[in-house]
């Protein structure tokens, strides 16, 4: 039986009853979720399920940044949006969707492209960052900024029939540059726009990202620290490989070469 808790309304007790029933969550854990602030980079294929499940879980504040508008080719996978929101800024469309699902949640939409000038100030207000971006410059910018301000980062990526997922706890485990030391040059960096993706795959990886975030907020279980999870949809397999912290890492190593955020776009044109 759920105990009465003056911190929750009757609606909240019902809404979160399946959480509260879990000994690993309970009323205390649900309160942590409602107090949590999570920042999502990208309101697309991964950002949609991440935001949806975080909103459903009652994450109290969800920041989301994206400067795109909803296009019809997005709707095969970007489930935060709909035919009714074609042409609307993705952050506005996502905010309406997530807040409609759960009025306890405040969604802060930022209709900008993340930049090295603003990222540190933006993420400082949040507990956890979730990388749902679609390009390498943003991915390395987010990693480096999270290492510098010591924010936990749940990073997910997808392509065609594959997904990758890892959780970065700066100071404790590996970072994205420990995993992949350098950004691939554009000719080695195919995108979903070039190669395609099955729409449900960001659903798989985004849902796993949301679970990682919830575990971090609750302080329960093990996250993918020092590990990379690789999903192969065609083979229906998940493989987990170890990712040691690299002492020579350019950003989190013992003698880091990168101490300020860089011009990550150099040599890249946005696709």
């Amino acid at each position: 039986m759920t105990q009465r808790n003056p911190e929750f309304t009757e609606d909240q007790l019902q809404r979160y009853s399946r959480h509260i029933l879990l000994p690993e969550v309970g009323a205390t854990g649900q309160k942590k979720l409602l107090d949590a602030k999570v920042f999502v980079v990208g309101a697309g294929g991964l950002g949609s399920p991440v935001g949806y499940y975080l909103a459903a879980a009652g994450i109290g504040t969800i920041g989301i940044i994206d400067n795109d508008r909803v296009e019809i080719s997005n709707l095969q996978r970007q489930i935060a949006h709909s035919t009714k929101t074609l042409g609307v800024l993705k952050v506005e469309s996502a905010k309406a969707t997530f807040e409609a699902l759960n009025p306890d949640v405040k969604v802060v939409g930022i209709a900008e492209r993340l930049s090295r000038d603003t990222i540190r100030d933006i993420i400082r207000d949040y507990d956890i960052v979730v990388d749902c971006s679609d390009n390498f410059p943003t991915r390395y910018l987010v990693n480096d900024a999270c290492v510098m301000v010591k924010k936990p980062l749940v990073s997910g990526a997808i392509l065609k029939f594959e997904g990758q997922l890892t959780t970065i706890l700066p100071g404790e485990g590996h970072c994205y540059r420990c995993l992949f030391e350098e950004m691939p040059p554009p000719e080695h960096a195919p995108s979903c726009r070039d190669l395609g993706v099955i729409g449900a795959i960001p659903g798989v990886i985004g849902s796993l990202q949301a679970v990682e975030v919830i575990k971090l907020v609750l302080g329960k279980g093990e996250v993918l620290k020092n590990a990379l999870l690789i999903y192969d949809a065609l083979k229906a397999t998940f493989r987990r490989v170890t990712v040691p912290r690299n002492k020579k890492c350019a950003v989190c190593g013992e003698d880091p070469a990168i101490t300020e955020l860089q011009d990550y776009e150099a040599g890249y044109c946005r696709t």
Partner: protein
Amino acid sequence: MAVKVRIPTPLQRLTQGKEEVAGKAGAVIDIINDLETRYPGIAERISEGGKVRRFVNIYVNEEDIRFLQAERTLVNDGDEVSIVPAIAGGKGG
């Protein structure tokens, strides 16, 4: 029994769509060079000047070769070699 080499999605166009190919036991760099004889163009995607590119990782079973003997890491029959490049999709246009 040969070595099983897992080919990542972006490189499967070079292996006629195969996601898994057989390799000969030996050093990782020799396995890559052997793949090149059957699948021209693949070595250049993975390595440059005998070194694995810094945005590609190679795992023998579950271990990253950078923390073993790098390109000289020996792979035995029955081992699995995974080539894992960084991928960036997520938002998807």
